[in-house]
């Protein structure tokens, strides 16, 4: 009983940290720091998945945890950092919308996500079911981050963070998706990042910048 509650406390702690990183990403200007935050988020995700696996004796979740550790903490940040280096945008800053406004919108979103998750969480039997709201909030905050950014790289990070949120929702609500789906999603994310990397080069070649404002020229009048 004590062990279970300890695990559930750990999971809740992880969820809180996840939400914190999501907010941090929402307000972070530096692209490089965004990548670091993304790596941290991946680590938290991986650890909390492992805790869920341990407490619920779901062995395939260990594989999920290892996979996300490998992919989201090591591989993807590595790729992104190399990309930033080769694109020479490591120290780029981004002009953001006013931080307090973004934060306030984010808080509204979190409230919305919690109220949305409440009836669904009732149905779940997982020990981590109360974290479903946080998972949804992470998805929405990442989406919000994509909306507020101008640079292509940070949008990709927002996209990846959204996937983190979905992954967390899956583990917390139903002890993870089937292994095949999880593998598929992981591969998709990897391939997607690689393809987007190629696009970055194309965009920069075309517009001499990674600022997506330039894409507005493509609009047909």
């Amino acid at each position, binding site marked *: 009983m004590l062990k279970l509650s300890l695990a559930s406390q750990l999971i809740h702690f992880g969820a809180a940290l996840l939400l914190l990183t999501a907010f941090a990403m929402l307000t972070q200007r530096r692209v490089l720091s965004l990548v670091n935050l993304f790596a941290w988020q991946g680590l938290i995700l991986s650890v909390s998945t492992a805790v869920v696996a341990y407490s619920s004796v779901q062995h395939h979740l260990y594989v999920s945890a290892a996979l996300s550790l490998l992919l989201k903490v090591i591989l993807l940040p590595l790729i992104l950092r190399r990309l930033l280096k080769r694109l020479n945008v490591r120290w780029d800053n981004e002009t953001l919308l006013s931080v307090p406004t973004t934060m306030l919108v984010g808080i509204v979103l979190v409230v*919305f996500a919690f*109220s*949305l998750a409440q*009836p669904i969480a009732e149905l779940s039997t997982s020990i981590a079911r109360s974290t479903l709201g946080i998972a949804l909030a992470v998805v*929405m905050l990442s*989406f*919000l981050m*994509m*909306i*507020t*950014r*101008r640079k292509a790289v940070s*949008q990709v990070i927002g996209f990846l963070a959204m996937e983190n949120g979905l992954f967390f929702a899956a583990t917390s609500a139903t002890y993870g998706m089937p292994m095949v789906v999880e593998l598929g999603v992981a591969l998709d994310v990897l391939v997607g990042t690689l393809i987007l990397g190629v696009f970055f080069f194309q965009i920069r070649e075309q517009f001499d910048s990674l600022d*997506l*404002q330039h*894409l*507005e*020229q*493509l*609009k*047909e009048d």
Partner: protein
Amino acid sequence: MSLTPLSIILALVLAWFAVGLLGLIAPRNVAWVGRTLFPLGAAMGLAMAVAAVLAIFGATETRILAIGLPDLPMHLRLDALSAFFLALIGVTTTGISLFAAGYFRGGDGTAPGLMGLQYHVFLASMAMVVLADDAFAFMVAWETMALSSYFLVTTQHRVPEVQSAGFLYLLLAHIGAISLLLCFGVLQGGSWQFTFDAMRAADLAPAWASVAFGLALFGFGAKAGLLPLHVWLPEAHPAAPSPVSALMSGVMLKTAIYGMVRVSFDLLPHTQWRWGVVVMVVGGLTGLFGAVFAAVQSDMKRLLAYSSIENIGLIFSGLGLALLFRGMGMGTLSALALAATLYHCLNHAQFKSLLFLVTGSVMHATGERSLGKLGGLLRHMPWVAGMALIGTLAMAGLPPLNGFVSEWLLLQSYLLTPSLPHTLINMLAPLGVAVFALTTALASYVLVKFFGVIFLGQSREPTAPPARDAGLLERAGLIWLAATSVLLGLLPVLVLRALDRVNLELIGSSLGERAATWWSVMPLSSERASYSPLALGIGILVCVALTFLLVRRLYHGRIRLCTPWGCGYPQWTPRMQDTAEGFGQPIRRVFEPFFEVQRQTPTAFDSAPKYRVVVTDRWWGLIYAPIIRLVQMLSRWVSFLQQGNISLYLLYSFATLLTLLAFVL
């Protein structure tokens, strides 16, 4: 599987398809596609005509093919009506395919092999339209026909005018198809069975039957070119290669007539006479409109396109007459009107295809489509000119050629309208007869212009190299169609016997054996009217021969060659001949309110005088332009969504997501 006409015809449809696919082996090889595959296709067309003629006099055949969607097999049916139209398709495509064999050459447009595929798919789909016995099979075949012909129209797809003409055609074809889809939806009458058998059995309330009829008229009218849905015809025909124009005008428009007859006589058993009046009025107006517009055209293919509209109008007015008689319960008269209508379909397929092919030969020889730059081709292209003469005489409705027979029969049935038991119609009927007569007279006028400006006189462009006559295969196609025009005119008994079968099946009464013999045609009784094509033909032949002999034998050698009196003009150039515009000018003046004319006349002091007349269709401004403006306005509103800003797009999806989630909550 025994060797019934239906199985032969299905095998031929498949064979057409196979011939088309074979063209893809060497799509750029003109010798392979043109000289081998197209003649093969022509032979299959002939075989199809023979099988279909056998089928007209045979029993009705049905078959269910297990292709298509699960639980929705294709129902096919070969009865007298579909066999008649299959015969039409077969006979006409024989000539057109022969011509096309010599016509297509390599160029910057679609590769000949690909075009061969589109062409033969087009043929096969037309045959399937006629065979279909359920709404699904019909719509699939109908849309295949529309799409394959769209690709054929846009063969020169790099030319902007061709692109827009193709788009207009596709748009109207689809609007028509939607209407047909709705029509079948009404026709099934709540049984949710989409076979034609179920539709025949469905007992529709009179109001719903009228709705179905109206939708069918709109849908088939859009394909046939009925007013005001005719706008695609004058655009698409000049854009398409000539054999394709011939096929579309000669054969494809007839599938619309087939559909109209099928729906209004077969699927809707209880005819209301009001439908007949509507169809008759619309058809009559379409005919007059087409004839008047044809008279002022100066592009030879546009001229023929408007003339197709005119003929479709005549056919529809005949159809309306047949419906009117049927609705009034006058079986024999209805049979006469329907026979005349279907006969005219067959005839129009022959001479209109022939004339479109002639324009193809002329264009190959001179590279010109504008009547203002042609002229005097009789000397350079005697074969083409001769065949064109037969075609124009047939279309002008002169005996003993085929156009006369059907127009005469149609006029006979018009003249019988006084026997209708309805005073208002009796009063309006003379008006209809007058419109009919005016239309046919104008059509003759148009054809004099067509033949005269192209073939007679002298070449208006002296610099052009002398034109060469058509090649052997092209000539064979022209001769085939000219021969069928003559035969259909001299031996109407063959056609009328076949049409008796159709009438018995659709209306339940026919003209009877006595109406037509080898020697003469008496639609109702010999006291009323009769016509002996063979006697007349022999008479005309004898007269011509005698005149020829007189001139050659008795008068020969007394011809004096000298310069004619020049009316005081010292210099004559070929440009001074009567032009197409000049020839059409009286009509343009008389029918001024029909047109929207922009005229630019030179002043006396112009150093480079120019005369320009642009005649446009009022319907465009009345109906189409407002719709286009509306669509453009709506699109401008929608285009506010497109800002090119990726954040905004993300915001759209985010807002959608939140709304949907809130909705679920």
